[in-house]
């Protein structure tokens, strides 16, 4: 007699990415998932692009010129940022999974995010001003 509304269903997977009124852990989970998808996409793009190396200097170096294009550069910045965020959050998950700091997982997350921002700023200056 109960309806099937409100039940677990994978159709509402976008709810992972909008953890409003949820705890910091869910934001970390959403952040981790978005960065993971981005990085995996970049990984295979990166492999294909490096294939140009095999076709000799002309193809590769001309592609390199593209990195001056602001959009591509921004894309690369996003990849760097995503890698740092995902990496540090991953460390938090590894630590808590083995019981280290599991009672202070929030502080761990905030701490890692501060480090992430510092490192990202460093790379940003390196990429844009350096």
């Amino acid at each position, binding site marked *: *007699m*109960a*309806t*099937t*509304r*409100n*039940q*677990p*269903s*994978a159709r*509402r*997977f976008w*709810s*992972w990415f909008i*953890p*409003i*009124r*949820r*705890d*910091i*852990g*869910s934001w*970390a*989970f959403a952040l*981790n998932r978005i960065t993971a998808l981005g990085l995996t996409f970049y990984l295979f793009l990166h492999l294909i692009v490096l294939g140009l190396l095999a076709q000799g200097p002309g193809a590769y170096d001309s592609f390199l010129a593209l990195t001056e294009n602001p959009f591509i550069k921004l894309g690369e910045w996003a990849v760097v940022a995503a890698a740092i965020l995902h990496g540090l959050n991953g460390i*938090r*998950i590894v630590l*808590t*999974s*083995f*019981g280290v700091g*599991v*009672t202070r*997982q*929030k502080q761990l997350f905030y701490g890692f995010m501060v480090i992430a921002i510092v490192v990202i700023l460093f790379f940003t200056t390196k990429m844009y001003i350096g």
Partner: protein
Amino acid sequence: MSEKWNIILRIYRQKEGEAPHMDNFQMEVNPDEYVIDAVERAWAFHDRTICFRHACHHSTCGACGMRVNGVEKLTCITLIRDVTYDGATLKVEPLRNFPVVSDLAVDMGLFYRKMEKVDARAVLPVTEAEIENPPRKWASEDSEYIRLSDCIECGLCISACPIMATTPEYLGPAPLAAAQDHGIHRKPELLSIVDCEDGVWRCHSAFECTAVCPSFVDPARRIMDLRKQVVGTRLSKLIGKA
């Protein structure tokens, strides 16, 4: 001393075969009352068709879990003062990830069946090691007293867990925490139940369950500990074989 607030109690309504909608009830409440009292008064004086589940009114039975303003709460110990203010609305919806029987009442049958599958302990010795360390100081340490376990099977963690929202097959925080409470070494048959696709490996460390747990169970931490137990058991089995 009893202050009076005028609030709008906004309740999720749904009868079988009808589309769900929200009903508003203008109510005068005492802010030091609990949310369940407001819901019960809405039933008693405003609309007798409101269905909701409640029993003990002091967080020992686990029947009155609902989402209050979007966050899972035990409505019997949630003061109205803590979740709204004078002249505002108080939105009450059923828990997520459970089939809705009607309005605020959900069917927690599958969740209880999962607790039964891991044979969750209903009563345990008072001096059993507490999750916190140093363990809470009980009145008399060396006693052999028995108390009801911390987990009151209220389902808040099931509603809050993002992974529970993906599949009904996932065991969920409370059953996994109950498995950890047993310990794989004490109950080896739990290994195959928790070391699987619907067990400890689906948890993605959102820690939502611990954020909403009203009864000191800290399921997230227990899941992490359970993972260590499973990895330890699997490795020792592997090394044992090698």
